[in-house]
């Protein structure tokens, strides 16, 4: 049978304060959406915190120790949680914490932090070259001077020890992105670097090995990659980043501050790119080629696009035929991902009817509105109850989201695809497009949905 009639939430149950965060696109001009505000206390937000933002950006640095200074929870919840692949060290996949106890909170945690860094240095041969120290909530309240401890330990051990003052309450997740960018800038240093032709890839976290595929494309075109930021990054190569001539930026939300500052400090211009979907991959590769000299580079880029499209196109077409006309909900964290996803789904003939992000900006939402279909509902800082309400109303055939949306969508009998971190293979790039459309196909055509919305007694 079709979706059930009973709904716990109807429009009057949406908090007054939340109504302005929700927008329905109509054929005329849509209004604005309220965003970039704090979450309302008491809502079940899908949002994370400052620490989370900082950690996700820095975590893929493979040979770094990520030391969480605070009680144990924050280290436990972020232990190897994201599928960032490494070609070198896997030190980053271990979880380090000062595990602050009551007496540390009373008397201060600086001594324990200092001792923890000493112990880490003593455990490993060779000595880790880079330690990030993340301050979590309590540390921000008790006022540990983690900068002083880090400076002292840097000098003592001859390694980089970089503080990240990421107490959860000092802002929202994007604040954490900015702190991570500042930490990366500190690692890169101020010393003038000799330029060499090549790009940095910013905002690719190498989920399922995506950055390797993109590097492969660039190599074919004749473009060298100086540093990966931060997917499969190493301390050594990150420090070379200032010598690049161009930053190509994928996840612009997390990398905004870094790309601005690298332009200012090192004179490296930034180019926003997207490797999701035929249109965006082609545009991105051609733009990179143009920015690095044009001519032969552009020809090589076009040749690569032609070859890949010839290979991937028929496979996509085959699956597309089984998906065309379906509708989808897209609820993800960042607006970058939401925008890319809407464009990709449209290439697949799937109509996005419900779009949510946790932290989109006014500019992002304007783009989302332009790209989405008429009648689509667009929600800022989506909560489960709002997702439930609009899923009932719009009855999407598919749901694309993160782990917390997964369980919700499945409970409502909506086929689900994870486009976040609980996944094991690339979803961006041409190769990723095949994976993604296959996954859409698998989930929407699984026999399980035949029973998912029925009960024996009905």
């Amino acid at each position: 049978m079709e979706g059930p009639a009973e709904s716990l939430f109807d429009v009057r149950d949406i908090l007054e304060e939340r109504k302005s965060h929700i927008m329905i696109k109509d054929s005329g001009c849509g209004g604005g959406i309220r965003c970039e505000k704090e979450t309302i206390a008491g809502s079940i937000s899908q949002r994370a915190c400052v620490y989370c933002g900082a950690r996700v950006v820095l975590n893929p640095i493979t040979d770094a120790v990520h030391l969480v200074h605070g009680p144990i929870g924050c280290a436990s919840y972020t232990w190897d949680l994201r599928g960032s692949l490494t070609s070198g060290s896997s030190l980053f996949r271990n979880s380090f914490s000062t595990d602050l106890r009551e007496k540390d909170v009373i008397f201060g945690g600086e001594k324990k932090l200092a001792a923890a860094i000493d112990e880490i240095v003593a455990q490993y041969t060779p000595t880790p070259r880079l330690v990030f120290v993340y301050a979590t909530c309590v540390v921000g309240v008790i006022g540990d001077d983690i900068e002083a401890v880090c400076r002292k330990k840097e000098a003592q051990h001859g390694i980089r020890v970089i503080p990240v003052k990421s107490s959860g309450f000092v802002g929202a997740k994007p604040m954490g992105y900015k702190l991570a960018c500042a930490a990366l800038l500190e690692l890169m240093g101020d010393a003038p670097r000799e330029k060499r032709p090549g790009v940095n890839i910013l905002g690719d976290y190498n989920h399922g090995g995506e950055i390797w595929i993109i590097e492969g494309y660039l190599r074919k075109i004749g473009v060298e990659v100086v540093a990966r930021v931060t997917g499969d990054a190493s301390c050594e190569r990150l420090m070379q980043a200032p010598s690049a001539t161009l930053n190509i930026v994928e996840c612009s939300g997390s990398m905004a501050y870094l790309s601005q500052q690298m332009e200012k400090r090192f004179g490296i211009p930034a180019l926003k790119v997207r490797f999701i979907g035929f249109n965006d991959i082609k545009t991105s590769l051609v733009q990179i080629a143009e920015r690095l000299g044009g001519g032969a580079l552009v020809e090589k880029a076009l040749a690569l696009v032609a070859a890949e499209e010839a290979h991937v196109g028929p496979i996509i077409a085959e699956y597309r035929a089984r998906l065309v006309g379906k509708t989808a909900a897209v609820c993800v964290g960042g607006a970058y991902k939401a925008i890319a996803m809407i464009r990709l789904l449209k290439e697949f003939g799937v109509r996005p009817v419900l779009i949510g992000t946790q932290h989109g900006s006014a500019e992002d939402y304007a783009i989302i509105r332009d790209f989405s279909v008429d009648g689509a509902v667009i929600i800022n800082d989506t909560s489960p109850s709002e997702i439930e309400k609009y899923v009932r109303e719009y009855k999407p055939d598919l749901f694309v989201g993160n782990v917390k949306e997964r369980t919700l969508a499945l409970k409502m009998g909506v086929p689900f695809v994870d486009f976040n971190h609980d996944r094991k293979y690339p979803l961006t790039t041409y190769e990723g497009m095949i994976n993604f459309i296959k996954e859409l196909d698998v989930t929407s055509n699984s026999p399980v949905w035949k029973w998912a919305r029925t009960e024996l007694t009905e």
Partner: protein
Amino acid sequence: MLDHTPKEIKERKAVVINPAKTCQPLGATYAALGIHRCLPHSHGSQGCQMYFRGHLNRHFREPAEASTSSFTEGASVFGGMANLKTAINNVFHIYDPDMIAIHTTCLSETIGDDLPTIIRSSEKPEGKYIIHANTPSYVGSHILGFANMTAAAIRYLSAKTGAPNGKILLVPGFVNPGDMREIKRIMKAMGVDYTMLPDTTGVMDAPLTGNYHIFPDGGTRIEDIIDAGNCLATVALGQFASGAAARELENRCGVAPHIMDTPMSIDVMDDFLMLLSRLTGREIPAELEEERGQIIDIMADLHQHYFGKRVALFGDPDIMIGLTGFLLELGMIPAFVLTGSPSNDFEKRVNALLAKAGVAGRAKAAGDLFALHQWIKNEPVDLLIGNTYGKYIARAEDIPFVRVGFPIMDRGVHSYQPVVGYRGLMRLLELMGNALLERQERDAKDEDIELIM
């Protein structure tokens, strides 16, 4: 590739590497989810609740809805009172739970928010409930948080009216809904009337009907928690996760506490049934006698596969104590028994079990998986038992690995299946036996492969 743990053991006092525990608020959230139409609420930064929900989602593969006070810089300077009052108002208005179960976090505890005062001065709709537990993340572990929230439900709600209800209050501990279902089946087979608190069956193992509801059908009924004051006795399974609730009900209502181990061995399971029988006068039914006979039959059939095998196990303290008992009954050697939870009692309890069986092994509380891995490198074992995080050690050392505990984020179905009761022991035997035999076959030469084992 994942093996970054050096064999040489050097002293560590400050840094934890690869934790075997998490923080109190997660346990408080799980306990509160086991109360019908109760919304767990985290009084802290919004990231905390996102992490608890994510962890619970990944283990149970179920929604785990919970709200947060969403602390900002202002709240952490001036206190979280305004945020909490707004949150309470919004939660009742928008989600309409029958109860909000608030837990504190390291942040709100350090600031010193006075929860009872804030709750008293909050607007609460008629007939609704608000309870709270202090769960600072820098004390104990998720197990203490579970214990504190379960005890808080009793502290706030339970009352003795002088009308005995003849029921047992059964506190199952931080276990899966699969375990709770098994315990309930046993209670039913015994013919014992009971209230289980908390009860995540029907919540964290809810069926897929397409009819999602933020408050599923399961969970302990609030009226039953109130009526718990009239119970005959409390049976608390697992001293660490369940003891506090039993003591709380004794203090408030004079209900006799019976705190025992999680029934994960023949001995403890026997004790559990005999205790129920003694408390209620019910006889142990043939059905359960038969199951007991079956498990012993299986142990006799297969004892040679287990005997003398060295096992490293890690996880939550009650589960570790329960499992240690069973491994000893199988003639296995619990060589390393580790929990991340801090406790004075844990090592004593495990060591007493080992001493009684005359087996040499090492117990450790407040340990981490880096230490466990180093021990295993120095003194290899035949089998590893623990949560998902054990897979790194199992892979690095090439040891058969059985997943038991929380969280298990890389396998399905486990949360529906018991590890308690005679049926749970059967499952454990199958899991362990298969792991050992599959390893034997994997490593065997062609000529040594046998059809019958």
